[in-house]
């Protein structure tokens, strides 16, 4: 049990702890500021060629003009939409397949070598085939995203399901639980942390899928901006689109991290 009133030593410990936490946050932001500052400075003083390496101010100006013309929102929403749809489909399909393979050990054994090969295959290699099959539209991009994220999700989640201790299952079966009850009461809640990890992996993979998809086929989106910028040698555009991508990916990751924290609070994993 925690003691409510603090001794002097406890107060000192808490002060030290908070000071270190603050320092970590300051240094984190400081590093970013230093990086951007040095970059800007180098460009202005001519240490680097801003035509090739751009600079924070040029990136900001490019983003501002995209924003002013209304294009920025279009590109962001296209990429974000594709990522979300691909991520959701990939996760649902991956988790669904994991449930199926957990259910049937025989099926799991049969498909095992295929999963191993599919997992190690760079799915990007299937890009040209996808374009032929699905045309050069959003469908091909979403399919590419789904392909990239589904196998990782499936393998991670299935691994989590299979790690649930057999004794816990025996305990539940001794209460007369059916296989479905075993799944709902032990297997799924017991591997929720792994499922969340799989989602974190999946979201990262989805960004890869979308950007590669947009490189191959697209008329809009951040990946399109990057490829277009490269082709016409507008490196400011390439860098600005990349920076926006960075921010979006981070935001989405934090959303999942937030959900994870809520989950952990609810399950008492942060208590005691």
């Amino acid at each position, binding site marked *: 049990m925690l003691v409510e009133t603090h001794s002097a030593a406890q107060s000192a410990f808490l002060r030290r702890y908070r000071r270190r936490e603050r320092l970590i946050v300051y240094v984190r932001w400081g590093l970013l500021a230093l990086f951007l500052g040095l970059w800007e400075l180098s460009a202005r003083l001519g240490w680097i060629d801003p035509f090739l390496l751009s600079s924070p101010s040029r990136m900001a100006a490019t983003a501002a003009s995209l924003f002013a013309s209304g294009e920025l929102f279009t590109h962001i929403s296209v990429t974000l939409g594709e990522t979300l749809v691909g991520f959701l489909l990939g996760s649902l399909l991956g988790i669904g397949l994991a449930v199926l393979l957990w259910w049937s050990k025989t099926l799991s054994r049969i498909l095992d070598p295929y999963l191993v090969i599919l997992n190690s295959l760079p799915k990007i290699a299937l890009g040209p085939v996808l374009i032929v099959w699905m045309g050069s539209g959003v469908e091909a991009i979403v399919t590419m995203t789904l392909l990239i994220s589904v196998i990782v999700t499936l393998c991670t989640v299935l691994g989590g399901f299979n790690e649930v*201790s057999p*004794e*816990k299952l*025996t*305990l*539940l*079966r*001794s*209460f*007369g*639980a059916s296989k479905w*009850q075993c799944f709902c*009461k*032990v297997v799924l*809640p*017991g591997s*929720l942390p792994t499922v969340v990890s799989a989602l974190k992996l999946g979201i990262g993979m989805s960004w890869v899928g979308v950007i590669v998809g947009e490189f191959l086929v697209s008329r809009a989106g951040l990946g399109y901006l990057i490829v277009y910028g490269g082709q016409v040698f507008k490196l400011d555009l390439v860098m600005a689109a990349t920076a926006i991508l960075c921010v979006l990916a981070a935001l989405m990751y934090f959303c999942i991290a937030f959900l994870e924290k809520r989950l952990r609070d609810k*399950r*008492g*994993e942060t*208590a*005691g």
Partner: protein
Amino acid sequence: MEPLLEFQNISMRYHALSGETDVLENFSLTVEPGEFIALLGPSGCGKSTLLSLAAGLLKPDRGRVLLRGEPIQAPPVHMGYMLQRDHLFPWLTVRQNALLGLQVRGNLTEAAQRRVDALLKSCGLWDFADAFPRQLSGGMRQRAALVRTLAVDPEFLLLDERFSALDAQTRIYLADEVKGILGHDRAALLVSHDISECISMADKVVVLSRRPARIQQVHAIDLEGGPMQRRSDPRFREYFDLLWKELDVHVG
């Protein structure tokens, strides 16, 4: 009086690629209502298989397991199975853990919930009903697991090496507590390779041979009181020596 639990000529054989193993051969045993029987035998002699059979988790190759004269087809409703470790689910509170069996059975009535509350109180866990298992001490976790087992109002308990994973002090303390809470109206089948534990808890100790398990000897333990009290009885030592020799003879 009709026996509560009956093993009738049970034979079990496990199959693996490396060959087959006889675990039980023509095994018969009767448990009367309220009787506490300890099965004492060397590790891997098939003791735990007997519990799985009584729990309805396994079917015998030959022979029958009867509960009040009826063959056991599925895990009986009023049966409590305690495994070696507490296996509390870390994502559920103590109370939710305790209600697990009732929930799975679909028996989450108000009367049942009141019974669980009463059990939590009598086991000193009432103030921790909404705490998570990680916030409990080792002894409290064991008691929470006990409440979960008793929540289904079992008429008999299966205890699988229940106390062997604990340190000596907790083991004796908990054994005392289990005996106290069980009272005399519930039957129990304890599987153990710990002689002292068997003597301190059971009315009858059944000594098993090595695999395939056969009954070597049956000893009625004529001691009064709980495990703590029994351990201080001078005859405890005599029973211990007797059982030690017996176990030694056919193991060694």
